[in-house]
């Protein structure tokens, strides 16, 4: 089953990040809307656990938006 943007948005909200909920959409750059480096770490872990995917350190710089996460997961 394909992952949808709302699934990723829910993860980001439930992970307890400081992302501004009003600005959170598929194309918003997460760091620009309040996610700091530790929030991102938390999001990476939640994504890994939920979708059983491995996010390598090399992948991190490419994962900046909900859309990036969708592409990453749906390609796996």
């Amino acid at each position: 089953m394909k992952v949808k943007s709302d699934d990723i948005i829910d993860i980001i909200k439930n992970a307890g990040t400081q992302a501004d909920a009003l600005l959170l959409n598929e194309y918003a750059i997460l760091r620009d809307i309040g996610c700091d480096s530790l929030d991102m770490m938390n999001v990476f872990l939640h994504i890994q656990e939920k979708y059983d995917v491995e996010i390598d350190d090399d992948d991190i710089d490419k994962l900046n938006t909900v859309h990036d996460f969708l592409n990453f997961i749906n390609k796996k």
Partner: protein
Amino acid sequence: MIGIKEIASYVPDERILNFDKCDHYGVTRDFVKNKIGVLKRHIAEENESCVDMALGAIKSLMSKVDTTIDDIECIVFVTQTPHAEGLPHSSAYLHGKLDLHSSVACFDVSLGCSGYVYGLNIICGFMNESKFKNGILVTSDPYSKIIDYNDKNTALLFGDAATATLISDKPRFVITDSVYSTDGTGLSSLIKSNGILKMNGREVFNFVAQNIPIQVKKLLKDANISIDQVDLFVFHQGSKFIVDTLVKRLGLDSSKVPIVLENTGNTVSSSIPLALEGYINSELDLILLSGFGVGLSWGTLIIKKYKV
């Protein structure tokens, strides 16, 4: 019954205020306060070693108890930044500086942030088998000596401190249950290389977030204790973010989880006794202690108020 009687601590005089360093490291005050959780760190003087800091903690301990230094029958010294070159062991230096009797048993335990939990079980077991009445568990790590101050991942986090715990046959708290783990395949996440501490923050975060809740739940299940029965959860104070993560993942009442690294930083094996120090004379019944870090090594135990 052997257990914890009293705890005392020592921090060096020199201190660094993290807010003064925000611009240098390109971080915000909000990040320092609410994520790292460290506003102030103490730094040992250049010639001040783990043994000197331990002496400060023991002096403070002796001022709080009726026991005298001549009553002490063993010292277990937890450190990973040993005195001089690490040979002989730091506890031998401490023995000499305290001018203790030759009958006093002294040895080191080389562990980091799990060291207090392991050390507590080691000294209690050792004293029980040896029929000792009084011993001291020391933790002391001047990590400032191995920090790269160009590395913001570690430079804003770690502080120097030492603690001394009086272990006695007239305890206030005794260990009831414990569980320990090691994962040597993950050791490169937190390692000293060329004299400098290297930390992969993401790997350490994943390790803690994924493994500590499992260990805590296993211990409580094995001990037949519900999470609500525990009066206090004292986690290693790795960072505010890591303790907050454990609160969330375990579904804990945050009022039962002290976060006390604001004025000391992550003090490695001293962080748990520093947090516990304020509760040792309380009326709390069950306290869970959980340490995790270098190794990777993690251990969790429960102490219970001892009633004669």
